[in-house]
């Protein structure tokens, strides 16, 4: 497992790619600083909706994770190097799990640090809120990673489908159709944040912490199982 994990880290942690993701991840920090300096200071609700919900959980996290996680298997399929791994006498989960963990290892520090700094600046060092935001974004990264790792294996058009998912599903439909939110990773990541610090983030309009955690487990576990199944059944290029 260690070999697959280290191999994937080397494949995903390209210097240019990480630099660009880092620039994207800095945006919420900069915007938060600007909001604080503004004479018309934003409310917690405004801040949550624009910076945390729309920008961090709805755009930066999924985009960064898409670029990284979809490549975990996507690059191997495109380069036809996947057979190097599948022709090994190891169970398929020992290929899938390290790929997933490597994607999280590369993506989550960017998002988590962005979330941590954003929260720390916005809430003036208030640790419960900071931890709630950081942990919920990290869990969001894990959920997105499980989805996009699977997508990278099943489709050569993973990036296009992923972008459509981010822009249309997470960005558009969840804003207008309330039922769709129950199937939204972004919504549940935000719900986790509310559940972890209900004092700062009231929970009336969100599902409970238990429900959001359960959703995260189902999404991560479900897509990992789907990925393992696909790897067993597919014709390896």
């Amino acid at each position, binding site marked *: 497992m260690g070999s697959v994990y280290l191999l994937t880290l080397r494949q995903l942690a390209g210097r240019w*790619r990480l630099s660009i993701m880092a620039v994207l991840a800095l945006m919420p920090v*900069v*915007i938060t600083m600007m909001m604080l300096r503004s004479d018309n200071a934003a409310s917690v609700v405004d801040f949550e909706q*624009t910076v945390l919900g729309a*920008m961090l959980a709805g755009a930066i996290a999924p985009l960064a994770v898409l*670029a990284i996680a979809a490549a975990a298997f996507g690059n191997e399929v495109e380069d036809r190097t996947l057979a190097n791994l599948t022709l090994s006498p190891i169970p398929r989960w020992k290929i899938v799990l390290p790929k997933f963990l490597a994607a999280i290892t590369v993506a989550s520090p960017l998002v988590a640090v962005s979330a941590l700094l954003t929260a720390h600046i916005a809430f003036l060092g208030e640790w419960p809120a900071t931890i709630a935001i950081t942990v919920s974004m990290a869990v969001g990264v894990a959920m997105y990673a499980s989805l996009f790792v699977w997508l990278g294996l099943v489709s050569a058009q993973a*990036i296009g489908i992923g*972008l*459509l998912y981010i822009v249309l599903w997470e960005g558009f439909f969840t804003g207008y159709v309330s039922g769709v939110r129950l199937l939204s990773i972004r919504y549940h990541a935000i719900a986790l944040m509310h559940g972890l610090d209900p004092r700062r983030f009231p929970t009336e309009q969100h599902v409970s912490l238990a429900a959001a955690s359960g959703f995260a487990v189902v999404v991560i576990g479900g897509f990992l199982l789907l990925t393992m199944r696909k790897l067993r059944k597919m014709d390896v290029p």
Partner: protein
Amino acid sequence: MFKNGLRIALGLGRGGKAKVLPFAFITVLAVIGLIMALIAGAVNRYVGEVIADQLNLPSHSDYNGIASIIMFVFAAVVGPELLCRDRRDRVINLYLVRPLTGSDYIACRWASFLTVMTAAAWLPQLILFIGLSMSAPVPAEYLKLHWLDVPRFLGAGFAMAAYATTLALLTASFTSRRAYASVFLVGLFLISTPFTVGLASQIGGAAGQWISMFNLTNIPVHVNDVIFGEVSEITKAAPAAELAASVRVGWWFAWTIIPATILWARYRRLTP
């Protein structure tokens, strides 16, 4: 080369899966136009023309603002197919050993993708125009009053297509992996909006207006506003909308010509 570019962009000559994304995008764009036409038709029918006019329903001008992000995602996803694969598979030399230069190669790729993007921009507007005409109490009267909308939406659509095409291909020219080009471009579009909006409102004044001009999603929409002579919903709140028409159009020009020049410069010296 031009035909080959069209085929690549639309997934023609390959399996069904290659066609899914480009045609899905075109379908989504067309459906938006269709929905707008249906809404306009329904409102005209049930509340009458007078009240419908007062309601200020979405029009050709607003369509471009609404569809702009989908157009950019389309360009970001499909555009890199034309360049990244050739870089990755190292087949550019196969073109260059023929009587083709690097300039020919990139010009053909740009022209073919521009054709696809322009068609994607125009088709929904045509559907909307036909829908609005048909739903008017007297279609011929509508056509007589609104025939100028046709060259307007054709011009605005072309502006959007040229801008998106050039930026998408320029980004793709820097990498052999389509994925990275696509995500970078979409990230740039998605993030530039809140960033510039926040900074512009913070700073205000003329500086704020110019900062607002760096909202990459809005650049072709400002051209759309100038062509239609009205500010769309998307750009209404943008300080840049207050700048002179010549400045906004010139800005679009700069953001299309300069990237096109860089793109050409990257390819023109290629030799086999």
